[in-house]
């Protein structure tokens, strides 16, 4: 399952709901991404999204992970809009029988989200605003999954 949220997200509550929903799985891996304040330089992130393409891309990433790894379920929730420093931007989880599949699925979904999802981050730094692009390292991370795709 996947969704885009313009409201604050609560990773603990999401993990709780996901865990209840997938009863029977022995392993649940999760990842939470939070807005880094960069030692106080960043006060807020604004996440732009496309009203249909962003949700579709995230759903496709979740579905690809579900097919690619031996997971019982996966979950992606991505914030859009204004997110204050310290607040969560993204929550990703996977449930599986053996832990390796859950770890790999979460790792994979995060790499894909960084490079393949039409989402755009703008940091507020002091009085200015800076648009972020996926770094070279993000593309290298993404490429790790291509050899066996």
């Amino acid at each position: 399952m996947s969704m885009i949220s313009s409201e604050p997200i609560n990773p603990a509550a999401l993990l709780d709901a996901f865990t209840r929903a997938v009863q029977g799985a022995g392993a649940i891996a999760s990842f939470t991404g939070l807005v880094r304040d960069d030692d106080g330089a960043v006060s807020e992130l604004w996440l732009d999204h496309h009203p249909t393409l962003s949700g579709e891309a995230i759903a496709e990433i979740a579905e690809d992970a579900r097919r690619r790894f031996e997971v019982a379920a996966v979950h992606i929730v991505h914030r859009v809009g204004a997110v204050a420093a310290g607040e969560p931007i993204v929550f990703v989880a996977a449930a599986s029988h053996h832990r390796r599949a859950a770890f790999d699925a979460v790792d994979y979904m995060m790499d894909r989200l960084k490079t393949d999802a039409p989402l755009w981050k703008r940091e507020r730094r002091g009085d200015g605003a800076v648009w972020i692009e996926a770094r070279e390292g993000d593309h290298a991370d993404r490429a790790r999954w291509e050899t066996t795709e």
Partner: protein
Amino acid sequence: MRPTFFGRLRDAVGAGAIDRAVPANIADSEALRAWLGADFPDVLDAKVRIALDDVLTTRPAPIAGVAEAAFLPPVSGG
């Protein structure tokens, strides 16, 4: 025809969407990009992708009957 702009293009254009009567000789997505590029040069960047009515284009695609042309710069999700 409604060109829409996301990420840094939204700020560069100064709006998330504009309404334009596209001239009849602008037949495909890349011609549209070149035509809008006269006013908004940021869309000329080859890394900016174009989606026509929610479908990403990889090469010039006809724009006849298209309601929205979305200009999508390199992303930064996650």
